């Protein structure tokens, strides 16, 4: 299908663009297959403003037809204005920016609006921009992704005795949402895995995600067991978990549902691990919201942030009412619990909710950030996201189809990944020296996950990515972020590696609204960005060179 079919009017002159931080400017608007391009004609050397259509979450239009008035005027000979009708398009973007276009001519306005509407909601993956994005500094021949399961396994020599890489899912038949290779206990053969997978929703049997060197314990994740109403058992699944805590006395299952929810899940074929069948495993329930509840929380929060009324009362109750910070609190406290089991008590943990593609990933990756200094470097963090989110089958395309402004009926949208980024931001705020990456990286990821030039967040699973050719025909965001100049931009100038676990405080006064994301289009955020520059300057322009100079002179 041709994009041009959707474009009824490609060019409009004398459009006025209003956007945050800029004076309204007049220029030419152009609609292409993937972008909205705005350029002001004057001698201004400013680059044209480019907006990815995919970034548009909602479009609102209002047109005014002043034809009647104009006749009145022209009959008395007072006005001869050529354009008498006009329209305004408000674009609400997934990065939470709100833009306005004043377009002369009602028809042009309606045409532009309908083009944007249809082009921004195209759902065929292979038509999306990442398949057309060809920057000069990247080559399609480059490796897609940072590391494979095999490479990751090869680096962890210490687990080679107890754990192995299984290719049981090489053709995605065991679990459609798992990557082809996963890490499992050495003593469990592929046949057992296949049977265990049949007992887990979506075939997501327990796999390793983190090995804690000091205690030799692990964090695993899976989906819920399909024990159902009549409490079915699966010998192989029990064996698999038995093998994990082989030798030690106890393991913890952190179920990210309330125990009531877990009970109810049995009615629809799901369930939980009963004490009698899984000896040595102790189940704890910590309810984390997901799906629609989380999406509505985001919508309410964004609405509260955009509220222009100036009463503190309403602001705090709206903030409270959105429950967003409560979700942050619960996520961090559950991750803290997992980390505590591993580090302080020396017990292995299995995390799951129902599907095992949302809150389980949230908890397991936050726990790793708390425990593992390697995951706190820039490359380590991106690697963690690749393993725990992209390869592990978080359904990005479904979850991030729309953001907080959309009027479209919600289907599978949920800002689980944004919640992760917020939690990471809270961690970094409490431990400003412990993370190798900076806030701009988190902001960049929050934007890219909804609309991107790169293929990293396309599709819902590794399998889909293979089928649609994402890995061959798009570029990888993580690779691009690790290029030298990008790396510098996204590094934390204050970073000082610590080997210790970073235990966050989850007391309400310790958790704050992430202004950098939710209020990024206000002046307030601008001053904070300036402050970051000063910090950068203090550390890298003054301190480091001086240090080197002293060393050189000394030498």
């Amino acid at each position, binding site marked *: 299908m041709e994009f041009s079919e959707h474009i009824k009017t490609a060019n409009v002159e004398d459009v006025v663009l209003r956007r945050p931080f800029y004076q309204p400017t007049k220029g030419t608007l152009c609609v292409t297959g993937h972008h909205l391009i705005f350029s002001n004609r004057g001698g201004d050397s400013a680059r044209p403003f480019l907006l990815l259509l995919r970034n548009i979450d909602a479009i609102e239009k209002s047109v005014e037809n002043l034809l009647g008035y104009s006749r009145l005027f022209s009959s008395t000979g007072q006005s001869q204005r050529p354009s008498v009708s006009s329209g305004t398009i408000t674009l609400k973007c997934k990065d939470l920016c709100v833009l306005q276009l004043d377009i002369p001519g009602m028809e042009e306005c309606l045409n532009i609006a309908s083009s944007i509407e249809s082009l921004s909601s195209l759902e065929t993956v292979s038509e999306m921009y990442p398949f057309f994005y060809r920057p000069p500094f990247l080559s399609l021949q480059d490796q897609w992704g940072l590391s494979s399961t095999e490479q990751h396994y090869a680096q962890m020599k210490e687990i080679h005795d107890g754990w192995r890489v299984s290719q049981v899912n090489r053709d995605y038949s065991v679990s459609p949402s798992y990557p082809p290779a996963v890490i499992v206990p050495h003593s469990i053969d592929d046949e057992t895995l296949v049977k265990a997978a049949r007992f887990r929703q979506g075939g997501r049997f327990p796999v390793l995600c983190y090995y804690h060197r000091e205690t030799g314990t692990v964090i695993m994740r899976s989906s819920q067991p399909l024990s159902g109403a009549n409490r079915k058992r699966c010998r192989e699944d029990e064996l698999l978990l038995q093998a994990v805590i082989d030798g030690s006395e106890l393991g913890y299952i952190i179920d990210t549902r309330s125990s009531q929810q877990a009970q109810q899940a049995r009615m629809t074929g799901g369930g939980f691990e009963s004490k009698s069948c899984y000896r040595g495993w102790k189940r704890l329930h910590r309810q984390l919201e997901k799906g629609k509840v989380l999406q509505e929380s985001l919508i309410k929060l964004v609405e509260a942030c955009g509220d222009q009324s100036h009463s503190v009362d309403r602001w705090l109750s709206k903030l409270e009412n959105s429950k967003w910070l*409560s979700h942050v609190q619960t996520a961090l406290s559950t991750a803290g619990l997992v980390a505590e089991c591993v580090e302080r008590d020396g017990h292995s943990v299995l995390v799951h909710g129902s599907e095992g593609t949302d809150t389980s990933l949230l908890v397991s990756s936050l726990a790793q950030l708390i425990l593992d200094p390697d995951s706190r470097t820039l490359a380590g963090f991106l690697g963690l996201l690749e393993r725990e989110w992209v390869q592990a089958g978080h359904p990005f395309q479904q979850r991030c189809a729309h953001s907080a402004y959309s009027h479209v009926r919600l289907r599978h949208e949920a800002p689980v990944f944004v919640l992760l980024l917020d939690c990471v931001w809270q961690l970094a705020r409490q431990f400003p020296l412990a993370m190798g990456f900076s806030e701009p990286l988190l902001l960049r990821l929050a934007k890219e996950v909804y609309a991107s030039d790169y293929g990293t967040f396309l599709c819902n699973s590794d399998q889909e990515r293979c089928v649609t050719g994402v890995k061959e025909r798009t570029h990888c965001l993580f690779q691009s972020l690790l290029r030298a100049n990008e790396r510098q931009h996204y590094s934390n100038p204050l970073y000082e590696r610590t080997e210790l676990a970073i235990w966050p405080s989850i007391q309400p006064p310790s958790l704050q609204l992430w202004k950098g994301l939710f209020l990024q289009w*206000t002046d307030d955020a601008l*001053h904070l960005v300036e402050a970051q520059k000063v910090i950068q300057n203090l550390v890298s322009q003054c301190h480091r060179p001086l240090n080197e100079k002293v060393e050189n002179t000394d030498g």
Partner: protein
Amino acid sequence: METIVMEHIRLPKVENVRLIDTVTSRRASVGTLYLTATHTIFVENETEILTETWVLHSLVFSVEKQASTTTGCPLLVRCKNFQVLQFVIPQERDCHDVHVSLLHLSRPEHYEELYCFSYNANSDREDRRKAWDFINLKAEYSRMGLPNHLWKLTPANHHYKIIGMVSDTYPADLYVPKSATPPVIMGSSKFRSRGRFPTLSYYYKENHAAICRSSQPLSGFSARCLEDEQMLEAIVRSNPRSDFMYVVDTRPKLNAMANRAAGKGYENEDNYSNIKFHFVGIENIHVMRNSLQKMLEVSEAHFPSMSYFLEGLESSGWLKHIKAVVDAGVFITKAIAEEGISVLVHCSDGWDRTAQVCSVASVLLDPYYRTLKGLMVLIERDWVSFGHKFSHRNNHLNGDPKEVSPVIDQFLECVWQLSEQFPCAFEYNERFLITIHHHVYSCQYGNFIGNNQKERTELQEKTHSLWTYLWKNRTDYINPLYRPDHSQTQGVLRPLTAPYCFKFWGALYNRFDRGIHPRQSVMEYLMAIREETQQLEEQLDRMADDIEASSMFAYPWRIGNICTICKENMSEQAKHVFSYGIHIETAVEASSMAGQEGCWYKGQQYARTEGLIM
């Protein structure tokens, strides 16, 4: 004096007392509790390092004896700096004695019993007196450009009384419009609560607009005062570029109207020509006291849910009150800086809300008040000299609890909120504000003793000044992000006052709950870096020195004291500079700029005149 205090101490020492960690309420340390004339001291047993907790009696807000349990009798001590200590004393009788003693010790009846009179009392008197001169308000007014052809210093209150009319709550030195004659001042003073007539608080040099302050007029329902009207007219006339002024009543309109029934009230626009009247609606001291109390209850809760915290914060109304003060400051700042219109600010007595609003406006208008010394000067001017009732508001003596209110606390918080919004604009850091807050209550220094300048002058000379102490330790209080040349620093601050710009100030209100603060501090890291940078610079200088000394002959253009290029003798000064190790590179680079290629001596001279080196 000492003996009076000692009488209150029924029991100087109790052993086997447990101090409960109120944050986790799990850990407790066992030790000995001592009561001294000035402090409660808890010394922990059996620790490798001597761990002591000192609590100044003047910082104690309340002492509460709780019901005995099997383990002993709990005693809850709440402090004005938001520290909460829970002791468990084995014997009920002992607990009772400590309780009674502490009640007496923490509520002295006379100024002489306050800590500032015993703190370091034996130091040199002359030094102490000199230290008080560190902040000089005369210098501050002349920094603003006063007196000038528009404003003059009036001697009207030099003896703290305006003929026939006591105005003992005002400072001796007051600035009034040039055209305000003594009869006008006197008349206006008679028409204002406590004789606090309109006088200058801040003068904006750039456009001659001024912030004036006063108390409410005694207008009742219809009273007029010609002199008071003339006084306001004089203020309008002292701003040549405008023909009217704003009168800002910081009270809610309802409160101001209620005051009319008591013969007080606000200015009638019909009687005063050329004024525009404006209410800003900041609540009174009683509302503020209750609001803080509610907020503290929320912040003290153990492991509350996010919803409990946010709902509690909202229902306390605290941030709403902070926003109201900042909003009022922003209104005045706009009037002064953008419109060039003078403003008269008042509330009822003109020493609480008026002080808040005037000083917030000053911080917004003038970068000077965003420096360490500037904030000291500002507090000295708008609060100390203009008779903010520190001893009443901050509960220094055993007095009326209804007089207590966190008024200056709110001002300090407003400054903090602004510094959060403009991280590079303030020379001082959060710690500076918290330290001032601490000492406003501690009574360790004489700055805030008493309720007005008249009371204070007699008391102060026996005490130390907080400002010199802070200045001596100023490296602790410098914001490493502050840049005098940064765009945020310069000119007028234009803060956003959307509700989301106001945050809970955990570092103050949860000051002693270490657990909730960020585990690593960017500020401390940067301060350490700054110090290290300085050391490195010094080290580099020393190295340059060494290199230079070791290579006297490596530079062909300089042999001995004679420059081989210009054949001139190095002056004594140049030798001096040389011996302090100025970078050779700088001098050589400078020499090429001076057009004397390679001449070290000319380079030095050039560099010095250009300010490149010292």
